[in-house]
């Protein structure tokens, strides 16, 4: 393993400059720019086909960019591949292991490949960290999906990386598994000081841990910034549970709040309103014969994200 | 050319045993040629057969160190040394750690055959030469109709009744020619004494010799054209003859060594 260098706080761990990846005529990533500072947890979001996985694979050198530059720890893969990979741990897509080997054998093998000095000891330590102690000698083929996800997290920590790239780590986990995964990510970031790049469709999980956000769509960066700042700057979402929601939306769009409302996937009416506008909106609905059952004021990542993508896709 | 090849080939085997004797034989036989020609004129077939029978009659038990070299088209085998045991009438064994190619008939078969004159009748066919030696040619024909052998031709030195060359024709295996070489120029003075050759050269037709094509075809070495070229190019013996030369160093003659050997073998 190459010698480790300490990362100064707020130094740039990942910097993507005009990153492009073409698969034949299809452009998966189209001039993507983003930065990740040391010590943060970056939520890497985007709809299916947005180019998230391709970008993450480029980050760990599984895929070579067609154009653009990618710097990790200020270095690029062309000249410092091994030095960079010695500082990155990743769990890309699903955790795949040699099914004919035990969990411990799998970790030991990968630890050796990572240049870990005491592979067995380190593997046992991490099996304990991810809560798989006692299952060391079981074949991976006997593991549930959740256990494999935990083992996947363990394998990416074998060489004590500075940057941990996690692609959908919560896929297939039960609620308790999701909570445990969240706790482990927070532990890695807060207790062990690791920088984390997290891609997930579980927006509530991302919201719980992310300090920074990057949203990509169609291979481009839609927005990047601190999670706190992005969520506070955005308009507050008011969720109104109302009878005949579709008719209510039509009415609102025809009136003073044209374009401000939409129906979410549960059929609820959501509107981007200032706090002072809420009583007027409720009154408008009741006066027009709609029954308002509940009003919820919230600013969740999910709403922010959906709103952002709607706007972006409408603009395009 | 062929004669030279044969001479070289045979010379290899006989070198250890008869190189010096052969020279002496050549010189003496040239001197004796005029005498033997005169003697053959007065000899009839019956007398010659009787003398041959008398010489062969005492053959019972032989042991010899033998050097064998086979020269067979499309067969490559190195010369080898072995021990030979022969017990009359037909027990023959070559004791060798190596594989050996020998004629189907055992080397003493002719002597054994000559012991039983009731099975054949002889006819003198005139004079001939074997190498530079004068000989009379004696043909033996079977008296019975159901014999496998059809004709035996012998070239015999008339004065000593020493067999110089023989040719046996069988229905089953065709014709085998044998040339007899002796270290001593003169046979034993006792007319009943064994006169065994020091070297024997068997020669037989091998033009019909075939090896299975399925096993010889080598898919990976060149094209079938190459294989065909190779198959039509014999390794040795361009005249299509197979030859086996045997050089003997007699260990025991009629002293029971072979009998003891076969007894041990049976017991073993």
């Amino acid at each position: 393993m190459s010698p480790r260098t300490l990362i100064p706080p707020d130094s740039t761990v990942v910097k993507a400059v005009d990153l492009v990846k073409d698969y034949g005529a299809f452009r998966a990533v189209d001039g993507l720019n983003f930065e990740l500072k040391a010590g943060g947890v970056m939520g890497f979001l985007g709809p299916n086909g947005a180019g998230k996985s391709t970008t993450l694979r480029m980050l760990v050198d599984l895929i070579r960019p067609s154009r653009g530059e990618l710097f990790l720890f200020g270095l690029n893969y062309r000249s410092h591949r091994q030095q960079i990979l010695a500082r990155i741990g990743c769990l890309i897509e699903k955790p795949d292991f040699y099914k004919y080997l035990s969990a411990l054998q799998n970790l030991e093998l990968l630890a050796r490949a990572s240049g870990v000095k005491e592979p067995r000891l380190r593997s046992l330590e991490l099996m304990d960290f991810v809560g798989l102690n006692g299952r060391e000698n079981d074949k991976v083929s006997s593991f549930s999906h959740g256990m494999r996800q935990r083992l996947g997290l363990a394998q990416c920590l074998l060489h004590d990386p500075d940057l941990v790239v996690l692609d959908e780590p919560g896929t297939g986990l039960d609620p308790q598994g999701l909570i445990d995964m969240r706790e482990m990510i927070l532990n890695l970031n807060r207790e062990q000081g690791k920088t984390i790049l997290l891609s997930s469709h579980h927006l509530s999980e991302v919201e719980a841990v992310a300090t920074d956000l990057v949203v990509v769509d169609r291979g481009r960066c839609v927005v990047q910034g601190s999670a706190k700042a992005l969520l506070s700057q955005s308009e507050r979402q008011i969720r109104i549970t109302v009878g005949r929601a579709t008719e209510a939306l039509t009415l609102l769009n025809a009136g003073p709040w044209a374009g401000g409302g939409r129906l979410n996937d549960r059929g609820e009416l959501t509107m981007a309103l200032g706090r002072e506008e809420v009583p007027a909106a409720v009154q408008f609905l009741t006066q027009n014969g709609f029954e308002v059952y509940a009003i919820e004021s919230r600013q969740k990542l999910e709403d922010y994200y959906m709103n952002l993508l709607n706007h972006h896709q409408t603009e395009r | 050319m062929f004669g030279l090849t044969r001479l070289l080939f045979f010379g290899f085997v006989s070198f250890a045993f008869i190189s010096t004797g052969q020279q002496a034989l050549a010189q003496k036989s040239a001197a004796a040629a005029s005498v033997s020609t005169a003697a053959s004129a007065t000899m009839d077939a019956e007398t010659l057969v009787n003398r041959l029978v008398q010489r062969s009659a005492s053959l019972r038990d032989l042991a010899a160190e033998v050097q064998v070299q086979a020269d067979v088209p499309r067969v490559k085998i190195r010369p080898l040394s072995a021990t030979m045991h022969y017990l009359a009438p037909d027990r023959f064994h070559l004791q060798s750690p190596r594989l050996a190619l020998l004629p189907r008939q055992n080397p003493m078969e002719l002597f054994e055959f000559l012991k039983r004159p009731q099975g054949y009748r002889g006819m003198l066919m005139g004079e001939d030469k074997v190498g530079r030696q004068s000989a009379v040619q004696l043909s033996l024909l079977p008296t019975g109709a159901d014999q496998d052998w059809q004709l035996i031709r012998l070239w015999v030195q008339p004065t000593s009744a020493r067999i110089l060359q023989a040719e046996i024709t069988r229905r089953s295996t065709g014709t085998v020619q044998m040339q007899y070489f002796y270290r001593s120029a003169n046979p034993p003075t006792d007319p009943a004494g064994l006169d065994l050759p020091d070297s024997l050269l068997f020669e037989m037709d091998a033009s019909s010799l075939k090896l299975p094509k399925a096993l010889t075809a080598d898919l990976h070495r060149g094209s079938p054209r190459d294989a065909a070229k190779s198959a039509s190019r014999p390794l040795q013996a361009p005249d299509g003859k197979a030859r086996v030369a045997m050089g003997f160093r007699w260990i025991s003659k009629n002293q029971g060594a072979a009998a003891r050997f076969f007894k041990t073998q049976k017991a073993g």
Partner: protein
Amino acid sequence: MWWIALRNESVKILAKPRSYLGFLAITLLVGVILLALALDGKSYIEFVTSSLQQSLTVEGSMLNGYLVGFIVLQMLVVHLPLLVALVTGDLVSGEAAMGTLRNLLTRPLSRKGLLLSKYGAAAVYTLVLLLWLGIMAVLVSPWIFGVGDLAVLSNEGLQILPSEEVLPRFLQAFVVAFAALYTVACLSVTLSCFADNSIGPIVGTMATIMVFTLIGTLDVALFDQVRPFLFTTHMAAWRSLFLDPVPWGDILFSMVLLGAHWVLLIGIGLWTFERKDILT
């Protein structure tokens, strides 16, 4: 690091049940051949020498352990490429299909180093498989049938080699056979770099061998120039070690040509793997 990667590859091959198929197949096939020859070997010898035995007789037993070993080698060297490809064709593409290639390629190990360790592991596997065949052919057969001079049939005819020369020739033949089989291994690992499934490289390797063998066998003048340079033409070069005299020039040419195939195939593999996008 290369040694560590090689060790890892060896651990995987050892743990994979598929790796033992080759050993099992060889054991079974050799068992069948030995049984058949023990029961009916004399007929086999008679068939081979029937023409010879019309006027000559072979003193001593042609059916000995060395001949049986040679027959075993001759029969099984045809099957070994499949057994080799079965494992080596899976070394890259199998991992790609399983998804484990991602784990490996995100380790601080160069792609070249990783792929070379796979070529190294392929060499070790080929060698061990060949050694197993060697043990079965050259140790087990003589143990059952005894030893003696070796009678070998070739295009040149029947050659009988003294028994004391046979073992050294077998050893040299194994070196040449290894060179040929490792070419197959290199081919399948290289094809494996192009694929993301296990079957493709195995089928590809066997198809290549079949096509090249066909080209080598068809008596068409067009192929005459190509034939000496096909690796399949030299797959049985080991048999030349049993000719007398040994055609060292031909064997050297075969070894150089097979070595050139290694270099070419490994070069293609490295070039491809270095640029390969891991999408699985």
